[in-house]
């Protein structure tokens, strides 16, 4: 946890060939506008040069960043390096879709300095991948993983989704084991949830999609912890596992430790000190404003001490760093912690209250429980 306090840089690539029915990250399917997006994003970057001169992590997410062709990606990275200074050991993560992976592309990524890949596998079962509306097949994902290993990427992560209708504990464990076979340094397991105005949430509203009950979801989640910790993985955040402390996602950890970060591109969020701001969720607006040399900020907030504390509780109970005892105030808070200790939702490690595996299942509820 004693990482550098250098900020992280996030680039939101707002393009997808097709939209997945569960996802509500901002993206458009008109990929022809990528060229324009690139130039305005670099203009946006230059507006923050004074405030954020250097970084030690760069995360290219989306959207589908792997849609960017070689020259565009090269322009992007070179452009960013012209504007900002990147620390020597910068973690440079690229989100990649399995069907975009080719040997050539991977070689290019390496050449451009990408040292970490996050692959959107979601499942190793064909029926599940199809259900999720992905444009790749399970077979393609396996092939992509072989290529990534062949290319010598030491740091790569696999993203999985669980809690699908009809999914069994058996099939979920199979997917987990398959993931392990490919030797990733990192695995993220996301419970399928209904987000905003997505096709899945509309289907659920209309009754044609029914997600498993919370008791089943809990078993999936515990199965993941079990299977992955047996393989030596550390469960360091509700949805994230790493093959050792040196394999955490440095960039993502910044989000959970109130470290500064800058987000560029539509819908990207930034944070510094006690201020958070975010860009409008609209490519047109983003192009228009940054094209005119303005920031495309869609909203901002300045957090009070109480809000900062509440967020520390929120992050703390979701991660293995837990919450410092001194954050818990009042008799009611103490009483609640005693209750959580008794029911083994948290453990005490010196002065920190650390969530247990069972505690992770209720992480979102704990901050309210312990604040008076």
């Amino acid at each position, binding site marked *: 946890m004693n990482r550098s306090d250098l900020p992280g840089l996030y680039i939101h690539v707002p393009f997808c060939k097709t939209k997945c029915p569960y996802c509500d990250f901002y993206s458009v399917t008109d990929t022809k506008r990528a060229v324009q997006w690139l130039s305005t994003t670099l203009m946006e970057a230059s507006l923050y040069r004074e405030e954020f001169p250097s970084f030690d992590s760069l995360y290219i997410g989306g959207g589908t960043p792997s849609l960017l062709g070689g020259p565009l990606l090269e322009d992007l990275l070179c452009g960013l390096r012209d504007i900002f200074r990147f620390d020597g050991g910068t973690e440079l993560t690229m989100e990649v879709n399995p069907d975009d992976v080719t040997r050539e592309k991977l070689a290019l990524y390496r050449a451009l300095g990408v040292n970490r890949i996050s692959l959107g596998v979601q499942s190793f079962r064909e029926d599940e991948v199809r259900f999720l509306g992905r444009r790749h097949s399970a077979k393609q994902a396996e092939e992509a993983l072989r290529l990534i290993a062949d290319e010598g990427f030491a740091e790569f992560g696999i993203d999985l989704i669980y809690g699908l209708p009809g999914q069994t504990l058996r099939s979920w464990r199979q997917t987990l084991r398959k993931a392990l076979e490919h030797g990733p340094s990192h695995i993220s397991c996301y419970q399928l949830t209904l987000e905003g105005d997505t096709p899945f949430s509309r289907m659920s509203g209309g009754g044609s999609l029914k997600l498993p009950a919370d*008791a089943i979801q809990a078993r999936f989640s515990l199965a993941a912890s079990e299977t992955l910790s047996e393989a030596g993985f550390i469960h360091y955040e509700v949805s994230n596992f790493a093959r050792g402390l040196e394999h955490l996602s440095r960039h993502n950890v910044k989000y959970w430790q109130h470290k500064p970060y800058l987000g560029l591109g539509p819908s990207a969020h930034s944070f510094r000190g006690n201020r958070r701001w975010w860009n409008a969720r609209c490519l047109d607006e983003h192009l228009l404003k940054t094209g005119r040399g303005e920031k495309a900020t869609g909203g901002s907030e300045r957090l009070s001490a109480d809000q900062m504390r*509440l967020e520390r509780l929120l992050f703390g109970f979701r991660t293995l760093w837990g919450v410092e005892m001194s954050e818990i105030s009042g008799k009611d808070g103490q009483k609640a912690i005693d209750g959580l200790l008794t029911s083994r939702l948290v453990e005490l490690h010196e002065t920190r209250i650390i969530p247990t595996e069972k505690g992770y299942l*209720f992480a979102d509820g704990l901050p309210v429980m312990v604040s008076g």
Partner: protein
Amino acid sequence: MKHIRNFSIIAHIDHGKSTLADRLIQYTKLVDARQFRDQILDNMDIERERGITIKSQTVDLPYVDENGEEYELNLIDTPGHVDFSYEVSRALASCEGVLLLVDASQGVEAQTLGNLYAALEHNLVVIPVINKIDLPVADIERVKLEIDQELGLDPEGAILCSAKEGTGIEDIFHAVVGKIPPPEGDPEKPLTALIFDAHYDPFRGTIVSCRVFDGTVKQGDTIRLMSQGTTYRVEEVGVFRLTREPKKELTAGMVGYIIAGIKTVSDTRIGDTITLDTRPASSQLPGFKDVKPVVFSSIYPIASDDYQSLLEALEKYKLNDASLVYQKDSSAALGQGFRCGYLGLLHLEIVQERLEREFDQSIIMTAPSVQYRFYLDDGSVLDVDNPLYYPDPGTIKSSEEPYIRASILIPERYVGAVMKICMERRGVNSHLSYPTPGRVEVTFDMPLAEVIFDFYDKLKSITQGYGSFDYEITDYRESNLVKLDILVNGEKVDALSILVHRDNARERAVKVCDRLKDEIPKQQFKIAIQGAIGGKIIARSTISAYRKDVTAKCYGGDITRKRKLLEKQKKGKKRMRIVGNVEIPQSAFLAALKTDDE
């Protein structure tokens, strides 16, 4: 004095009393059209919304007839609900006549009858007015027949009116002047003035509304409130226009107000007689009663640190409502609160709503209770209106509960359904009469406890709105009472305890357990809800445990939204009460009180 008329409008709820009052005011041009708001006399929000008058107001209408004679017509507004029947009776005692309003589409209803009887008791001239004749469903002939046969009044004298459209208003003024006699009284005799209402004014203290029968009162007089013997110096007298209009004096026959440095409304008693301290009347005016609350429930602040603020709100509220009584109460589940007594269930609802709306209090109200009477082995008698004070059952020799005589007026086709709900609610001694063909008056002796919950709503729904209901409290009768406790994970939630008839206990327990099951959110452990009498469990329900309550993602774009959700939940938690280790939301306490399934 011969140019004064004191009258009131009496009507069943919704028959248009307030609208008619508005029309009469408009006609006299006391207020111009621009200032005019519907239901001028009902100036509380709740009154406008519910279309009922809670706090009566009086207005002095100047009227000039076609011969140029000037009159002062005192319209004494009355609350239109059975909870306030004593206030109504004092207002009627201040009048010489009434307009009896009947809805042309609804006809005569139970309260119309009750109101008529009250008016006849005071020997008032009754002028029937058929209102809402503009409605397409108006059936004037049928209503006339009912006026004749059910009320025994001359239907030919009935005035046809549409208060909404303003027709028949002139006729009403004619009738008030022509048919209602002027007041009698002697200005030279010792002062007797009847208090029929009192309001609180933050600048002037209590504004006493009164009718002077004999004598004269003016600024500087020392008055005496006869039932209490307290004396006050008169600061101002006057009459009610839409605002107060000071006068030199009030004399026999007049209706007006007295301001005399009376601090709170509770220092006065409705129905009391005002006389002069220097020259007192020999006796009080008849009919004075000290009204006692009949329904009781406790009020607790949702956040226990709001106790002081609730106390202040109650004190302020009480300034204007002498009929609410309260004292400190405390509950293991809900902390410090107040036990309150109300005139009836509507009164309870009004207090609750006004505390929440006007005084911005977030409160939990416990189940309404009547006052039960317990005869104990040691010969003592215990009146209990709070389940907390239920005596040790081993020491109870016998118990009693208050009964009412309920009178229900319905179209004949609903007799079966109405008899059924009355009997389900332990009604006995039923009696049927047929005032007009097709209509039935059903009377029942029933425990008051059976009507204080939702009897009226239920009656309305099974009779599709045609049933009307009136009651008076008659006596105490022997009853087999038990205390029903509700336990959450084995802990008794004292605020949910109720006293019930043994035969009803099980059914009530099952309902409360089911409702709580729906209202208490899942927690990380299983929650058992039980209904028990003594140590015996008679009903139970279970809330299964939550197994997972966490969202998958928490990255840059998720944090603000997640924190806002937590902030909202934190606020919501303030509205929760913790019993043992279970968080119970306020809504659960409220829902547990409802007996009906909506």
